[in-house]
């Protein structure tokens, strides 16, 4: 019998996604310096759309399945169904009041525990950062809890001879890494065009697709290590950003007249002979 590379199981991909408020709809109460997210509609964290596309392309090419994983309140569920409609196979939402108030230490721990419970994984994909927290700390955190390799700010990723070949952004350039699997990979925002939702899949995603909710008890995690209690950082005060005093002068007149006023102001910056 000739040796033939077979791939019985394909790739087991876990796609970590987050639902974030639309930044332009977040209401700030300037008097109390608090943020009211309740009035804001939500969306899937934009970089996560790019990671979903990467996950689905890898599945198209290598087979296997894509499992969505998120941690958050029940309102996340309909957004996970959008990702299911794009092509993911199943979704798991870690949802429990005890998870609330977590910093990145507790969040990455909880997600890592969710991944352990899922059990099988070749790749764990994340977005490069969330548009609300914007720390980019959760993907390396998950990798550390699971004691596996990480690639952050990845662009093109390929599977080559059972290893992951990933292009990664560095300051002023890029690098190409060859990484053993399983690995955690955070995907740069904007590297691809996320696919459209297939209509038949949408019907399935809305009605039948499995979205499983796991609580802290389901994960069997120590309550001291999750949520606010598991967090090493605390917010000691909220304040209003100190605005720099500006003239705030609005000019008037034709484009030429306004340009002239600006010209007079910026003239000292002109390079002679430019």
């Amino acid at each position, binding site marked *: 019998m000739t040796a033939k590379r077979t791939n019985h199981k394909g790739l087991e991909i876990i796609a970590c996604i987050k639902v974030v408020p639309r930044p332009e709809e977040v209401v*700030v109460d300037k008097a109390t310096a608090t943020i009211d997210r309740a009035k804001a509609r939500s969306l899937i964290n934009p970089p996560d759309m790019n990671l979903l596309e990467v996950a689905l392309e890898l599945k198209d090419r290598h087979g296997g399945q894509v499992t969505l994983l998120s941690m958050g309140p029940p309102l996340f569920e309909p957004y996970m169904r959008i990702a299911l409609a794009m092509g993911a196979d199943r979704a798991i939402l870690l949802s429990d009041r005890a998870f609330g108030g977590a910093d990145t230490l507790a969040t990455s721990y909880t997600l890592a525990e969710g991944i352990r419970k899922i059990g099988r994984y070749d790749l764990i994909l994340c977005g490069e950062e969330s548009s609300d927290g914007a720390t980019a700390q959760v993907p390396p955190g998950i990798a550390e809890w699971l004691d596996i390799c990480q690639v952050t700010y990845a662009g093109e990723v390929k599977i080559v001879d059972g290893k992951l070949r990933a292009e990664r952004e560095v300051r002023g350039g890029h690098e190409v890494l*060859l990484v053993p699997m399983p690995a955690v990979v955070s995907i740069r925002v904007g590297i691809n065009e996320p696919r459209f939702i297939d209509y038949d899949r949408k019907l399935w995603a809305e009605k039948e697709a499995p979205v499983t909710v796991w609580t802290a008890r389901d994960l069997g995690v120590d309550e001291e290590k999750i949520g606010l209690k598991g967090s090493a950082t*605390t917010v000691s005060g909220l304040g209003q950003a100190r605005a*720099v005093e500006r003239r705030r*002068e609005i000019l008037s007149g034709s484009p030429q007249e306004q340009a002239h006023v600006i010209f007079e102001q910026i003239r000292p910056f002109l390079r002679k002979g*430019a």
Partner: protein
Amino acid sequence: MFEPLYKPEEAHGIWVYLEQQAGKLEGVSLELLGKARELADQAKVRLTGALLGHKVGDLAKEAIACGADEVLVADDAVLSQYRTDPYARVVTQMVQDHKPDIFLLGATPDGRDLAGRLGVRLRTGLTADCTAMWLKEGTTLLEAQVTGFGGGITAVIECQYHRPQMATVRPGVFQAAEPDPARKGTVTPVVVKVPQEDQRVQVLERVTREGADITKAKVIIAGGRGIRGDWRLLEELAALLGGEIGATRVAVDEGWVGRDRQIGQTGLVTRPDLAICCGISGAIHFTVGVEKAAMIVSINTDREAEIFEHSDYGVVDDVFQVLPALIEELRKAAQT
């Protein structure tokens, strides 16, 4: 609570991670030394730099000139290029041996990659991308300010029970001190032991170039969504004023401009003498990156755009009408 690696009362000193690329210290590391020097003087503690790489010993002197009292140098071929696992291994060993109280890192791609891994390995708190920091009166408790999401909110983050208190800071937020070659400090070599299991990742290639450094630009011409991908006028204006092009995150995500020119919360903090903002709405994510400019001029068709609240002069008009007129006047003036 996760069991802390060591107790706050055992911790001492402030550390800065000295990131280097191709044998050159990152600007943000020098900026952190500048800020950390202030904090160290205030608390009367030592300021230590953690330097990793291969044949990088000379950089220790530069760090001392810029404020470090001591530099721990891990110099080994295995560290010649940044890789998460070997670097995390060596830094963890350094931290366990010396028990720093505060540990600051630059929020570059590699700095964030390392910091995120270390935060969990050291079981401590890591504050992302502070815009200001100070010590709580009479203590060495770090209060790190971050700009909150949405608009105009700042939050102060503390890490009370875990050490080191870690934080990342974006390039341009703080200013480096003028190097003083006469400053004295000690250079302490560190024994490097990186097991095979930490060398699983292979770097097939790494290409970097000296990108634009808009954090040092005197004049910045910034564009956003309203530019619709047409940067010719902005480039022309930048050339006349000896300035650099800057961009909002949207413009960078659209692929119009490289990331080295992104201004704001997830980009760079700039402090030019003049910033001209073209077709930019002025969300806080952007304005935190230009608010240190001495003068801000904005052009936007939307009178309600938030950017006008942050501007000295506002032009409520079409960028593509105003800039040609402005460029013409500047060009005429340049010739006389």
